[in-house]
């Protein structure tokens, strides 16, 4: 593999990594924007998505794509439940939502240990076995299951973008994020919008988990590192800003993948965190953040 090929390969890896990170982080940012809740259980929802895909597809022989869709729906239902039971009574309580989401994180992790056991390796026999050789170059390979991550993430994010820019419901959601009181005065039901936002957000995390399931080790704690990455993206992008999150997801993923390829994984995370702190010294509200909360 020549230098150029390695660079090309790394760029493609970065693209796939960033599409997933963007999908995951946008869900987190959406919830913060609408409800002012930092959802610590977002990683747990991702875990639930991966677990249910594994359970349906590998254990029960449900077709792969049906399993992905069912897992996404399951996570959406989980999101609906969390909004109605946990986050709604906490509205206006600045740290209340965060705390109950931590409680939910504990419960979901324990539930998955209880249902499926901790130590067992949960391998998914890959649905796609072939790889794609970019530009016909033999040494640059992208497994089809990784291409699926990119495709699904792009599809969902594209759909979400259309929803936000083209539909009245999307505008209503944007209005809620910008000024909840004014939105309520215009007859927008904040409760309904919060519910919808939570369903979308949970579905994004769930779909992410479902398509990542064949690529990662499925454990009850698989959500934590992904959540930490999403926090970095969220805060660099500016909390509550979806555009910021997208830009930050690409920047961070490229940085992280390149440092991982050329130096090492742990160093990449440490450097990422340090760079984030340095960035925040210069601009404490993140890339796109305008207001300082509190």
């Amino acid at each position, binding site marked *: 593999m020549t230098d150029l090929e390695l660079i090309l390969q790394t760029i493609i890896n970065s693209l796939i990594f960033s599409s997933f990170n963007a999908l995951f982080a946008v869900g987190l940012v959406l919830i913060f924007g609408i409800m002012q809740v930092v959802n610590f259980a977002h990683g747990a929802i991702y875990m639930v998505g991966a677990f249910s895909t594994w359970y349906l597809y590998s254990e029960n022989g449900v077709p792969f794509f049906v399993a992905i869709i069912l897992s996404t729906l399951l996570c959406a239902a989980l999101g609906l439940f969390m909004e109605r039971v946990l986050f709604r009574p*906490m509205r206006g309580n600045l740290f209340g939502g965060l705390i109950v989401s*931590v409680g939910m994180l504990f419960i979901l992790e324990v539930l998955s240990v209880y249902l499926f056991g901790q130590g067992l390796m949960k391998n998914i026999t890959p649905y796609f076995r072939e790889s794609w050789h970019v530009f016909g170059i033999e040494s640059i390979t992208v497994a089809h299951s990784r291409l699926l991550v990119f495709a699904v993430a792009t599809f969902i994010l594209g759909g979400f973008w259309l929803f936000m820019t083209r539909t009245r419901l999307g505008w209503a959601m944007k209005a809620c994020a910008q000024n909840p009181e004014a939105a309520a005065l215009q007859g927008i039901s904040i409760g309904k919008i919060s519910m919808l936002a939570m369903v979308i957000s949970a579905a994004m995390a769930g779909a992410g988990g479902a398509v990542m399931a064949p690529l990662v080790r499925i454990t009850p704690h698989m959500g934590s590192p992904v959540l*930490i990455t999403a926090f970095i993206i969220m805060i660099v992008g500016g909390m509550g800003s979806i555009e910021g999150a997208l830009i930050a997801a690409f920047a961070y993923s490229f940085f992280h993948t390149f440092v991982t390829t050329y130096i090492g994984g742990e160093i990449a995370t440490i450097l990422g965190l340090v760079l984030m702190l340095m960035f925040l010294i210069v601009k404490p509200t993140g890339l796109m953040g305008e207001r300082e909360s509190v």
Partner: protein
Amino acid sequence: MFSRAGRNSAGIAVLLAVVCILPFIVRPYQLDFLIFMFINIILVVSYRLIAITGEFSLSHAVIMGVGGYASALLTLHLPISAWISMPLGGVAAALIAYILSFPLFRMKGFYFLIGSFAAAEAIRLCWVQFINPFGGYRGLRQIPVLEIDLGDFLYIDLGAPVPYYFFALIVGLIFLVIMYRIEHSRFGFVFHAVHHKDMLAQSVGVNARRYRTIAFVTGGFFAGIAGAMVAHYITAINPGLFGLKQMLFILVWVLVGGLGSFAGPILGVVVLSIIDESIRGLNELRPAFYGLILIITMLFLPDGLVSLPDKVMQGVNWLRKREDGDAPNRE
């Protein structure tokens, strides 16, 4: 019959007597549990010291770890007694907290929350990454224990549970008194002021950021010593001990107990630890119980367990009013 102060001091005396007898009647593993409870009390009260300035930090567990690592490394590599290294561990933790305060206190609210988390995680990953001197995932081992060695006259090995129990008790009590005094000093009043009336405090010339930094560094010092106390008791530490889970437990204890009063976090640690201990048989289900308690408390007792008596009294009064009928309303 008795004055309130009299009753309070009588209560404290009884509590102290019970606490002093306790190590001789409980089983050995329960002694461990009590020791960690004392250490956790130091941890949550020091956390409250930071939180009363209005910023919730997610770096406390790692700051605690800094104290543990610093003290352990000092005793492992230098001919220093643990008696000296423990306070130095606290100083190291305070120093790291001071360095972190520069970037962190430029942020507010959720930015601070996540920023402090990220900064802490960076430190923790350094322990994982740099095997020399931090030992990587496996951490540090064979950390010397504390000992009182006065030659032939007196020798106590504080590595044993019963002596360490009293050591943790005494240190805990001293720290509680110190932190209580800090909160009720001029500093403490300013801490409250920069939380509740940030702008007003600044407009009368209080440097809010400076006071937040003071609280952050002071809290870090006590947390660092708590970390050193853990390190020199269990004699082995690793990065996993100071991860996100530990931090979330601190947050749970503080908020379930009630951040509003000094006794709240202590109550949180004691009640939740005892519940945790009594459901020991459930093993891996324990965190779920924690989660459930957390959610129920936030939903029904947003001010924490300390507000339970008030809530009960409110309920009783409400019932009494209903029994009296609506008569007062008709007037």
